[in-house]
């Protein structure tokens, strides 16, 4: 416990210092008000013993200054004074002193009074510490609550998005049905129409050029419509998968086998352009899951990686690295590419439905959102990180069947 003693009388000062040291206090002495105030501002003290009458600043003035200072406000002040009048004592206490001892002081009394101060200071410290802990706890709780809230909002958004997409998917299905159907009927009609047009052509006349264009281009137009409908159907299917709430069929899945199967499924996309390196741990434990859905996730990651590496295929050979390993009760699958990597500002958004960096029409922006949903359904986690040497690493954690 550190105490400042401010006393202009040399003898009193020495006596006070001696007693305080004897009682176990760390003592700093000052011989006038100004130096006392300066020392207080420079160092940290727990208690201060002030003489009322001092050159420069008086003890009472220091009391007021202390109470007005934010930093020193907690200091315990014991005012020493030769003034014995009750009103003086009141004035001292009013100025901010915590205690008032009349000089000449009785050492035993001073000791007891300092002990009172010490107890107060200690309990004040304890309180402060508790307060700090509470504050820390409160801010932690607040952060947690905020995180939960944002998770809930996200989940809620996803849920309503699920309902919405299911609805949208169904609504879009009807128009694409009659576009698709009509165009197929038109395709059947086309030979008849073409024959008639050819006859018209044979007759000669002015409209020939236009008729020729129709004969040449009509099949292309039909094709354009069909391709459009096909693409819509693909998106709608993605939406349906995304919004599907059905339970997965949980069977025993060998992850390595799953990877092999997925590679086979997208071999067309990978071959010639990309080298696949596999570091698969032998005798991997199995996981419980829906093998088709897990394959879907892997195919999605592989194709994404291939797309990313296509962008810089001129610079270096695209290498898709696949790693499997076990960490405690988790099976880890790493899918790494050496493409240009995902820009920092887009990292957080890649899981959002409809977010895509691919060209319009090339990606639906649903792949990773669906993948994340599937991995969560399996009780697993999927995360993304930047590789040190450029490129992207996706990590999937799946619980082992035993674990």
């Amino acid at each position, binding site marked *: 416990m550190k105490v400042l003693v401010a006393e202009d009388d040399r003898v009193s000062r020495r006596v006070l210092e001696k007693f305080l040291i004897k009682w176990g206090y760390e003592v700093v002495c000052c011989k006038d008000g100004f130096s006392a105030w300066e020392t207080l501002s420079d160092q940290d003290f727990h208690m201060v013993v002030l003489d009322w009458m001092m050159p420069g600043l008086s003890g009472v003035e220091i009391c007021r200054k202390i109470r007005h200072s934010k930093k020193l406000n907690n200091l315990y002040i014991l005012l020493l004074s030769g003034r014995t009048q009750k009103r003086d004592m009141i004035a001292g206490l009013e100025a901010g002193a915590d205690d008032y001892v009349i000089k000449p002081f009785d050492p035993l009394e001073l000791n007891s009074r300092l002990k009172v101060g010490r107890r107060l200071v200690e309990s004040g410290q304890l309180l402060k510490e508790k307060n700090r802990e509470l504050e820390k706890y409160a801010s932690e709780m607040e952060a947690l609550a905020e995180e939960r809230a944002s998770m809930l909002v996200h989940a809620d958004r996803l849920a309503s998005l699920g309902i919405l997409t299911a609805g949208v998917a169904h609504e879009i299905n*009807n128009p694409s049905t009659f576009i698709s*159907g009509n165009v197929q009927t038109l395709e059947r009609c086309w030979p008849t129409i073409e024959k008639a047009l050819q006859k018209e052509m044979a007759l000669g006349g002015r409209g020939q050029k236009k008729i020729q264009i129709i004969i040449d281009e009509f099949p292309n137009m039909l094709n354009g419509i069909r391709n459009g409908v096909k693409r*819509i159907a693909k998106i*709608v299917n993605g939406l349906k998968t995304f919004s599907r709430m059905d339970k997965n069929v949980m069977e025993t899945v060998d992850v390595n086998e799953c990877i092999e199967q997925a590679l086979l499924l997208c071999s067309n996309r990978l071959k010639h352009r990309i080298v696949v390196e596999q570091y698969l741990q032998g005798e991997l434990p199995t996981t419980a899951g829906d093998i088709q859905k897990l394959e879907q996730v892997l195919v999605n990651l592989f194709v994404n990686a291939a797309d990313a590496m296509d962008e810089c295929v001129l610079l270096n050979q695209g290498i898709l690295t696949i790693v499997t390993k076990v960490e405690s009760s988790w099976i880890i699958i790493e899918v790494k590419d050496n493409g240009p990597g995902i820009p920092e500002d887009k990292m957080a958004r890649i899981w959002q439905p409809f977010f895509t960096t691919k060209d319009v029409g090339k990606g639906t922006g649903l792949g990773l959102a669906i993948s994340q949903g599937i991995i969560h359904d399996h009780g697993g986690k999927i995360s993304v990180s930047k590789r040190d040497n450029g490129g992207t690493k996706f990590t999937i954690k799946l619980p082992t069947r035993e674990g």
Partner: protein
Amino acid sequence: MSVNILIVDDEEEIREMLVRHFTFLDYNVEMAGNGVEAIQVLNQKRIDVVITDILMPGMNGVELLEHIQNDAPMIHTIVITGYVTLENALSCMRLGAESFIFKPLEDLSELEEAVKKAEDSMKTWQRKLRELRGLKSTRKE
């Protein structure tokens, strides 16, 4: 003898598209916007094949299949739907639907084949029945 098809779908554009398509393929085609309308048509005309949607206002496709199974079991039924659930598929199967085809009908030939199969089976039976009548008449003589 030509085949009479009834197309049941609440979406007018789909209904008309299918009518056009099957008319073009030389079938006689009728249409209805829901189950109730479909039953009215069934009561008035001879229908061989019913192509029906599932989700429709009024009376849905599953109920229509049930009605057909009870009242006119010789009619062949084909279901087209965008609302694909296992439950729907199973109940349609139990109610005697011969095909279950998903919208958006990216390839109409699947539907055409289903109709063709129904037509073949119908014609086979008609031939058998004719033969049977022939047998009877020869027996009488």
